């Protein structure tokens, strides 16, 4: 309750104080300062600031330096201007109601009506905050913290799980390795047995081989000695006489070839001489024939030349063609040997044939007839020709005497030429004879040389007791091959001796003999080298396998040793720790879930509150009922009222006649009563805590009855809701009514302005 209003300097008031009671009335005529006091109250309670309408109005009317205060001071500036002017204070009887959704007091009215004084929007805000995911809020910080703790716990769990897996893995590995180690040992044992068996077998085989070898070596020693003996016997062949023999052979070959050449030359010469002889003989024949013709021709020519002087009777010779033909054939046959064959016998036959032919032709070829020449010349000519024909078998073509003579002379010249030819052939033959003699001498010399060479070779071979050069070659080859064999064996034996660690053949023999004495024949199936090689390779393979297995076994053993060092045979505290972690994780999970649920639940609650905030209908119904009740209290009877959405313009009031009317159609008195009732109702809902109503001539339009009703309503409100009342009036009757209604009324009578 405001107990005092002090005006230090306000309008015309200077240092004036008014004590205020629960109900105070300021009474005074016009211009007694009521409005100034009203404004001072407005200034004190609201302290309008800046450029607001009220601030400017106060400043322009009362100046900047105005000064007023209230007591207790917590009322100073405690009421928003809007709430004061529109709700709590009625200025100069002007009762208005400006309901704005946005005004703070209207919000407060709603909140109060709705929630009984609790602001649902504040709860909604709180709930929204609780539902918010904004990281700055405590619950989100808590959530984040929990989540980070959860994460670290999960990491720890994962770490432990990994450790567990590691330990179990190690344990399992140890078991596995131990098993494997055992298996390896078994396998190794088995393989080693196999290996030993194979080794024994191989050793037996090797001993047998050794004995075989010793025996073979001894046999070789024998062979070498035999060979040496043989070589000794054939010592003559030890030196290589091959070049010597080759030279001899070459010499012999040369003389032989020389001799052969001489024989060929001799033969050739002989043939040439034969040819020359045949040519000579033929020339002899030709010369003889030509001589005969020439004789005949000479005789004919002489006859002719003789007949030229006397006619002559002449015997004519007529040829016999058959005989001549036969002679011709003979002659031709006689010519063949001369043309084809060279043998002297055939030449003789040819000559005989030719001679036969000539005889046959000469004696039987012609028949002689005696002709009588009419004219000696012609006869002579004719005889000559006939005779020629007879003589030669040829016809003389010349008709004339001279011609005939010339022809006969020609025949004679031919005979001379044939004689010359014979002469030449004779010379030639003589030359060939000479050459033949030389060739024969050369051939005989060559033969002697060849025979001497042969003799020399034979003598050389005889020195070796050989029949021919081939034998020497064979003997020599044999010698060489034996020597080679001996050398090979000697080398082998030498190596063997080296292997047996002894020097010399006899030492080796002794050693081998001792070896054979020392060892006994092994009871093994002797195997061929291939089989032995296979066995050995199998043994080597086994050995290798054994080596590998050993390495594996050793590795397993090492790992077992290492594992034994690390594997403790127990998981220790790990399962317990895991369980503990899981418990804590579950707890955290639950806590996080609860936090999230709380947030979600808060969101649901906020949603419900928001729904409530939006749901004004019932609020307004409550308010309409309240206003209706107060309106009825003023007007003295129950007045129904509809006030949808609290919009005054849309309100309908049932008037005295029972007609529903909008406020604009109401009488001024009824309208004021309605607005007064609404204001009081709203003011009561708007003010949280102590209330105040400032009423400057509030009942101007009301009749006495309604004024009394209004005063009673205000008295009730004052009493029930602890509302302080301040009246301003010039009306003494109202003062009387107030005095009658309010038990405790403080009255300030105002004088003319400035005189309190």
């Amino acid at each position, binding site marked *: 309750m405001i107990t005092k209003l002090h005006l230090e300097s306000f309008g015309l008031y200077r240092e004036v104080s008014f004590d205020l009671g629960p109900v105070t009335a300021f009474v005074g005529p016009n211009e007694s300062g009521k409005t100034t006091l009203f404004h001072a109250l407005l200034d004190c309670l609201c302290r309008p600031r800046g450029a607001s309408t009220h601030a400017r109005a106060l400043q322009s009317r009362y100046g900047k330096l105005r000064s007023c205060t209230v007591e207790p001071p917590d009322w100073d500036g405690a009421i928003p201007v809007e709430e004061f002017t529109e709700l709590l204070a009625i200025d100069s009887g002007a009762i208005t109601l400006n309901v704005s959704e946005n005004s703070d007091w209207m919000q407060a009215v709603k909140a109060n009506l709705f929630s009984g004084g609790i602001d649902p929007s504040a709860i909604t805000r709180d709930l929204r905050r609780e539902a918010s995911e904004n990281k700055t809020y405590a619950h989100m910080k808590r959530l984040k913290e929990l989540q980070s703790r959860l994460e670290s716990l999960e990491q720890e769990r994962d770490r432990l799980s990994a450790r567990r897996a590691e330990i179990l893995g190690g344990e399992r590995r140890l078991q596995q390795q131990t098993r494997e180690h055992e298996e390896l040992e078994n396998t190794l044992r088995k393989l080693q047995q196999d290996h030993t068996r194979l080794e024994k077998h191989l050793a037996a085989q090797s001993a047998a081989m050794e004995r075989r070898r010793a025996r073979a070596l001894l046999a070789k020693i024998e062979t070498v000695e035999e060979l040496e003996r043989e070589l000794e016997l054939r010592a003559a062949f030890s030196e290589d006489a091959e070049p010597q023999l080759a030279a001899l052979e070459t010499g012999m070959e040369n003389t032989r070839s020389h001799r052969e050449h001489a024989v060929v030359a001799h033969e050739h010469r002989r043939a040439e001489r034969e040819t020359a002889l045949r040519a000579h003989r033929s020339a002899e024949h030709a010369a003889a024939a030509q001589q005969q013709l020439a004789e005949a021709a000479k005789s004919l020519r002489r006859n002719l030349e003789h007949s030229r002087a006397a006619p002559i009777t002449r015997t004519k010779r007529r040829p016999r063609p058959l005989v001549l033909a036969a002679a011709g054939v003979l002659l031709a046959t006689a010519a063949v040997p001369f043309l084809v064959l060279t043998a002297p016998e055939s030449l003789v036959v040819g000559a005989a044939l030719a001679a036969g032919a000539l005889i046959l032709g000469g004696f039987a070829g012609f028949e002689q007839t005696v002709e009588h020449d009419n004219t000696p010349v012609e006869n002579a000519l004719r005889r000559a020709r006939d005779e020629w024909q007879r003589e030669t078998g040829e016809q003389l073509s010349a008709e004339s005497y001279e011609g005939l003579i010339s022809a006969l002379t020609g025949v004679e010249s031919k005979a001379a030429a044939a004689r010359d030819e014979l002469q030449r052939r004779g010379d030639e033959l003589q030359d060939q004879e000479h050459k033949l003699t030389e060739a024969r001498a050369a051939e005989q010399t060559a033969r002697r040389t060849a025979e001497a060479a042969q003799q020399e070779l034979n003598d050389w071979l005889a020195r070796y007791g050989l029949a021919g050069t081939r034998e020497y070659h064979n003997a020599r080859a044999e010698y060489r091959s034996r020597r080679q064999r001996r050398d090979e064996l000697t080398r082998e034996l030498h190596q063997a001796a080296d292997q047996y660690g002894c020097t010399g053949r006899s030492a080796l023999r002794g050693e081998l003999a001792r070896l054979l004495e020392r060892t006994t024949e092994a009871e093994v199936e002797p195997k061929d080298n291939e089989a032995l090689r296979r066995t050995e390779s199998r043994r080597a393979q086994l050995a290798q396998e054994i080596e590998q297995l050993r390495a594996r076994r050793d590795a397993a053993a090492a790992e077992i040793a290492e594992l034994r060092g690390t594997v403790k045979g*127990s998981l220790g505290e790990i399962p317990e720790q895991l369980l503990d972690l899981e418990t804590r994780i579950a707890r955290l999970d639950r806590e996080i879930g609860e936090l999230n649920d709380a947030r979600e639940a808060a969101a649901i609650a906020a949603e419900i509150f928001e729904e409530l905030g939006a749901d004004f209908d019932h609020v307004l119904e409550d308010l309409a009922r309240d206003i209706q009740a107060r309106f009825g209290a003023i007007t003295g009877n129950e007045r129904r009222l509809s006030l949808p959405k609290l919009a005054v313009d849309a309100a309908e009031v049932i008037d005295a006649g029972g007609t529903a009317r909008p406020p604009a159609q109401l009488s001024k008195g009824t309208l004021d009563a309605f607005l007064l009732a609404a204001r009081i109702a709203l003011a009561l809902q708007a003010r949280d805590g102590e209330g105040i109503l400032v009423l400057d001539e509030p009942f101007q339009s009301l009749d006495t009855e309604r004024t009394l009703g209004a005063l009673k309503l205000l008295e009730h409100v004052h009493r029930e809701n602890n509302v302080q009342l301040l009246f301003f009036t010039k009306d003494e009757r109202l003062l009387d009514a107030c005095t009658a209604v309010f038990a405790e009324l403080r009255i300030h009578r105002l004088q003319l302005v400035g005189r309190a």
Partner: protein
Amino acid sequence: MRKAIHAADLHVSRSEQQYSFAVFDELIELCRRNEVDLLLLAGDLFDSYPDAVALAPELREHAAALPEACRAVAIPGNHEELLRGEEPLETIDLGRIAWATGSPFQRYTVCGIDLFAVPFRSSYADYLTWEIPAAGEDPRIVMMHGTLAGMWFSGLEETEESTVAIDPDVFGRIGASYAALGHIHSAHTEELEGCTACYPGSARVWRRGENDLRAVQLLEFQGTALTRHERLTLTSAGRYRHLELPVGIDPGKVLTHVDEHVFDSADFVELALSGLIETQAQSAQLVRKLQHRLGPRVRRLEIDTEHLEPLSGFAALPLARHFLEHWNRRWQHAASPREKDLLLEARRNALTKIKHRVEGRR
């Protein structure tokens, strides 16, 4: 074909003697009905060592009803260790039930089943050093009591005393095809290390939160293989029922709400009242009425009023009224349990906020 029943955590106790023996009798009856060859009791047969000592004679009598052909083996659990001190466990005589106390395990061969019964120990960490005989032809079962590391079951075990971890590797090591486990009171089955590891859950409702039907596991073996395992419900064990009762403007409504539920006489019912109520006295009165109404119908009734807060004038508070109207509309449409949980939480939060505002204002 051989059959076995695997049960765990019966917690036979003097405080709930009648109830726990009723469940035990049903277990025996299940063995009879299913012609079981082997009954496995995987720890916490008794609720404590003194319970074991006091109730062993009665248990022997009940166990005598086991069918002739059925062998039974029990291992001690952590509860048999409770209050034991230095007293010997081995001397407890369970009659027909073989009491496996050999360390680290006791081996039984029953009807061709090779059973490794591992009594409870404070640690199984040394299991790597156990001498496990090579596996034969028979199927192997390992019976243990503790919590499997690596499969934490949230929620239920939160308040359980310190537990012992079992590393599932042990199953593989033993070569078991089935692990009969005890200690976790909710049922879980998982394939681990080639072994079906199973918690059948506690045979009876031992404390709040044990929501599901109580059951045992029926096993069938053919040759060396586990061919079938299924749950058999123990009806005499009842259930744990948790009921959320949001108190509104009219607290009396919760009574009719409770009446809508059907309860078994063996049930353990917990009612959780939440919301605002005019006075503490009104709250107490409501609890009395609920106890009167429901108490005789169930084995055990607990009423939680932690979230029921008094606020005078609550019923007349327009905001609260309006809020509850809206909330109720949502509640009626809520389908999933999670939705309901969230709505209950939203209700608690909102009403608490209203309460604080109202009190702050006063």
